[in-house]
């Protein structure tokens, strides 16, 4: 039997339906891959017995014909999704040994659709980071290496484990979350496909919060179709999440292969600043050319406040995070470091339990919300956020979808000095992705090419709110013949 882990979800599903192989066989193949690639540090918890038990049930369902849309498909779950009875840590020391007694809505829907859980995937601690290096469990290693170097490269972040695991065929697909680029950027670094849907498309219930007004779950998978299949299962209104949208979810798969003749694709001038990496600039041009070939109309647009998005993001996200992470106090779950008085217990537990980047953001967030600074920082950032959103609304009067690069760089070596020394340098990697979160829009990263070093580069498609369909349509056009 050929390597089952090379199959896309769509292909594997066909094989399972035709009984070419069983879900148990498929799952075993992935378990082998997962174990063989432990050096990548993509999984922080492996749950092979759970996956196999679920696979057995799936095989029975296929036999009875009661299979769900992801029946028997082994997935990896970012360790930010609470999974009932399965340790969930957000890759933070402070959640040591935490076993949620509840299931996140998204993982619940995936399980309902028949998927099985191979294990929990590594991420930047509390999803705060752009290289997966802030994880308490250590960095994820990108399966790709540069041609002329043996150096281990970052997988991107925060969903580094998800992107690497998919890229190395350690799971058929993975869940990710994206607050400022955390699905799209690692997908680009690892050469896989990932979509952050519109804010409100997927329920946040049971996903450990980083920045509530920006966090959104989405899939990372081997191709566009697999993303559509997974998102079909993940999306939908959830009364348990007041910010989830009561809007019908279309069949995303149905958009694939649709004609893009006459589709207006916006190209924002601000995404091509002076000094943009030439290879990335070229990749973008290639993407533009490819869409043009297929009849799309290219439209120049302007998103004038783009340059302020990162600064606004690094006020809003830490502010929300400082509050969201207040619950980790050593009292009800996770790590407790004793202290004489309650406050000492809080301080000791939090000081030991949180890593450097998380502490940095908690403190920034606390400061920008504190008395006397709220207006100057937080309120100002929210006003700029509105301007950024309005930029997109205006731009979408002229176009149907926007094409940009996903990240300004390719994967860089683990421990990169400039990033370690100055956190802002790391943050700048999100320059093309954060605006999308601030505006609440859907965005997808596609592995459109490689650089001279053979490292994957991604292009990003940005859609109107709740118009992931157009993204899928455009993405499938962009990726035709590529595969």
């Amino acid at each position, binding site marked *: 039997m050929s390597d089952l882990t090379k199959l896309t979800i769509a292909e594997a599903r066909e094989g399972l339906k035709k009984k070419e192989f069983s879900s148990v066989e498929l799952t075993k193949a992935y378990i082998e891959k997962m174990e063989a690639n432990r050096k990548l540090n993509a999984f922080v918890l492996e749950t092979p017995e759970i996956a196999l038990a679920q696979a057995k049930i799936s095989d029975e369902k296929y036999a009875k014909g009661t299979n769900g849309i992801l029946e028997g498909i082994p997935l990896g779950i970012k360790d930010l999704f609470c999974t009932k009875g399965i340790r969930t840590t957000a890759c933070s020391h402070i959640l040591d*040994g*935490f*076993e949620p*007694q509840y299931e996140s809505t998204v993982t619940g829907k995936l399980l309902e659709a028949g998927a099985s859980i191979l294990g929990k995937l590594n991420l930047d601690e509390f999803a705060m980071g752009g290289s997966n290096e802030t994880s308490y469990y250590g960095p994820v290693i990108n399966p790709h290496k540069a041609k002329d170097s043996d150096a281990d490269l970052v997988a991107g972040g925060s969903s580094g484990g998800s992107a690497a695991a998919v890229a190395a065929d350690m799971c058929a697909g993975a869940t990710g979350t994206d607050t400022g680029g955390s699905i799209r950027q690692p997908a680009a670094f690892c050469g896989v496909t990932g979509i952050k849907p519109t*804010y409100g498309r997927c329920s946040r219930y049971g996903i450990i919060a980083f920045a509530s*007004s920006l966090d959104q779950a989405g899939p990372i998978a081997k191709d566009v179709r697999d993303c559509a299949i997974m998102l079909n299962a993940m999306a939908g209104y959830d*009364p348990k999440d*007041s*910010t989830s*949208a*009561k809007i019908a979810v279309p069949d995303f798969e149905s958009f694939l292969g649709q004609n893009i003749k006459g589709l207006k694709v916006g190209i924002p001038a601000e995404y091509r600043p002076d000094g943009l990496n030439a290879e990335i600039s070229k990749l973008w041009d290639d993407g533009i050319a490819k869409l043009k070939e297929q009849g799309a109309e290219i439209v120049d647009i302007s998103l004038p*406040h783009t340059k*302020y998005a990162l*600064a606004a993001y*690094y*006020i809003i996200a830490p502010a929300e995070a*400082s509050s969201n992470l207040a619950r980790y*106090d*050593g*009292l*009800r*779950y*996770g*790590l*407790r470091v*004793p*202290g004489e*008085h*309650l*406050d*000492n*217990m*809080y*301080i000791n537990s*939090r000081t030991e339990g*949180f890593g450097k980047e998380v*502490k*940095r953001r*908690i*403190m*920034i967030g606390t*400061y920008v919300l*504190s008395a006397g600074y709220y207006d*100057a*920082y937080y309120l*100002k*950032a*929210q*006003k*700029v*956020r*509105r*301007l950024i*959103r309005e930029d997109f609304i205006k731009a979408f009067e002229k176009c149907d979808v926007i094409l940009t690069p996903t990240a300004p760089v390719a994967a860089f070596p683990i421990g990169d000095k400039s990033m370690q020394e*100055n*956190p*802002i340098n790391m943050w700048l990697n999100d320059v093309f992705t954060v605006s999308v979160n601030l*505006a*609440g829009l859907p965005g997808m990263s596609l592995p459109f090419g490689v650089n001279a070093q053979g490292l994957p580069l991604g292009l990003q498609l940005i859609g109107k*709110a709740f118009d992931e369909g157009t993204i899928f349509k455009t993405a499938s056009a962009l990726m035709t013949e590529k595969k």
Partner: protein
Amino acid sequence: MAIDNETVKRVAFLSRLKIEDDKLEETKEEFNKILNWVEQLNEVNTDGVEPLISVNDSNLLLRHDEVTEGNQADAVLKNAPQAQYGYFTVPKVVE
């Protein structure tokens, strides 16, 4: 707005984090660097702009007043570092 060591200490306490004295200076400098950087927002004219608090345009939907959860003290206490008689316990709180 450059901040001083006292502010760093105050913010750390509000965050219930400890910064060792020998890290104070370094933390302050990094803090100021970040604040300087985000202050580029001051270039943006936001006169008359309403702050955006939610990208979701719809209104809040409400839940029916029904008891749907409870009688699960074991599950609630399952992960507690310390619990006794069905309560979470902590070092004595001095009011």
